[in-house]
């Protein structure tokens, strides 16, 4: 029964992951008008679906990067399995709740923040509460890149800088090369390049992010004794995760799309292509080298870079600073929610009752935030409105 809750909440997390990250791939294409908003989210959703099915690499050990609730081969730690694995399930459930709560809050504020950081933060918080500091994998054993510092914090610091550099160089080269070509001619040409490069980012997102949830669900299945194979993931898990992330992407996180597409930099299609090209290259190359970077950090860095690389373009640094602030607090904030929900569940006996109550709390919070968002809706119709202009829309980002 707790298992059912974990699976449902994990799929809900995957769904928020999808709509939170639509912006990473499609914000620039929507902002420049290369694609209409509806077509853009449909394309992104379809490519995420394809991407999720392509990611057959076993993602079972996903939690090992930050917490010690699994062995290195993916099996759950035996001492957490007493009573049908409910100890482990409660930790995972509380962690997922922390991740979803943070994803929804940042969406409400229109801030792009990393969904993987939210998930890891929630898991770290729940583990700290449940198992103490020794349950967290801070820095691995030093022989390879591992742990919270090596796999989460350092990459988060580096990835926007790398992506920004690549996008800035790309933008600068493009404007140098196409100097003397009529602007209308370049706009049309680069729109095609933009669509292509944005599609690549969507595909990469599907392959990268969906498998995290697949890993978490499979871990829960193993812990409760419903699955034993640590080499494979059940097909229905893969299909559900793929559908959840794709439908989330299709729904579109319009608030975040608006911030990334219009808020940071006024973007033209050559910049858009440079930004998405840089994002796609950095994400695919790093994940191929086994070094997973956050899609969000990369995409934001790229868009900033495309603003720096274009002669005479303005970058709204205040918006950028707010985003960076959100990134810095993602890990501790999601962790805090994860830890608090674990304590609530533990107080209620750490069993089914606790699991039901914390899931109900999450649902209540989600409904409250959704209702709040209705007051100042951002939708396909107004997503491209001027950033500075009418006061009514300015507050959507506040």
């Amino acid at each position, binding site marked *: 029964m707790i298992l059912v809750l974990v699976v449902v909440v994990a799929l809900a997390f995957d769904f928020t992951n999808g709509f939170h990250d639509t912006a990473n791939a499609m914000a620039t294409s929507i902002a420049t008008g290369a694609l209409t908003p509806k077509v853009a989210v449909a394309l992104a959703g379809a490519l995420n679906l394809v991407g999720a099915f392509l990611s057959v690499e076993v993602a079972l050990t996903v939690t090992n990067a930050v917490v010690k609730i699994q062995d290195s081969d993916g099996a759950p730690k035996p001492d957490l399995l007493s009573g049908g694995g409910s100890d482990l399930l409660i930790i995972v459930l509380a962690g997922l709740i922390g991740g979803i709560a943070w994803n929804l809050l940042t969406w409400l504020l229109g801030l792009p923040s990393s969904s993987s950081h939210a998930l890891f933060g929630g898991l770290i918080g729940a583990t700290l509460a449940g198992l103490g500091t020794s349950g967290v994998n801070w820095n691995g054993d030093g022989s390879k890149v591992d742990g919270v510092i090596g796999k989460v914090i350092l990459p988060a610091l580096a990835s926007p800088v790398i992506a920004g550099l690549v996008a800035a160089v790309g933008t600068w080269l*493009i404007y140098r090369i196409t100097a*003397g070509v009529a602007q209308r001619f*370049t706009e049309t040409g680069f729109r095609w390049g933009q669509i292509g490069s944005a599609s690549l980012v969507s595909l990469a997102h599907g392959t990268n992010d969906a498998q995290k949830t697949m890993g978490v669900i499979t871990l829960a299945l193993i812990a409760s004794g419903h699955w034993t194979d640590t080499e494979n993931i059940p097909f229905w898990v893969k299909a559900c995760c793929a559908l959840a992330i794709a439908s989330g992407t299709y729904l579109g996180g319009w608030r975040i799309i608006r911030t990334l597409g219009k808020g940071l930099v006024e973007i033209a299609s050559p910049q858009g292509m440079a930004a998405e090209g*840089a994002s796609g290259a950095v994400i695919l*190359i790093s994940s191929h080298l086994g070094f997973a970077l956050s899609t969000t950090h990369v995409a934001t860095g790229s868009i900033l870079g495309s603003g720096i690389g274009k002669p005479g373009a303005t970058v709204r640094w205040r918006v950028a600073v707010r985003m960076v602030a959100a990134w810095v607090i993602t890990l501790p904030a999601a962790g805090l929610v994860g830890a608090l929900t674990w304590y609530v569940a533990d107080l209620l006996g750490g069993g089914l009752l606790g699991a039901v109550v914390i899931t109900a709390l999450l649902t209540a919070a989600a409904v409250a935030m959704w209702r709040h968002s209705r007051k100042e809706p951002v939708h396909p119709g107004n997503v491209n409105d001027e950033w500075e202009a009418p006061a009514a829309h300015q507050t959507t980002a506040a």
Partner: protein
Amino acid sequence: MHTLSLVWEDLWKITVASLILGAGLPALFAVGIRSLAYGTGGDAEEHGAGIAPAPHPIGRALAGLCFAIVLLVVGLGIVLIVASGFGQELSFDSIYPTIQDK
């Protein structure tokens, strides 16, 4: 501090490869656009009033070549990612790429 040097080893590889592909391919695409404008002539290029540049067929050919290279590299990239997901790898042993078991 060992972690720092390990991370650094990965990061500079990512940076160099991303610069080549992530900035290089868009730049090549830009060369394609430039050539296409040269090939199309007329209002595709900025020009003084009344003296529209003549179209140059060689520009169109060069543009086609640039776009083809960009598509080819992106296509190979996707094949590489998909193949490694299915436990295969891309080999350049026989000059043209082939897919084989890891």
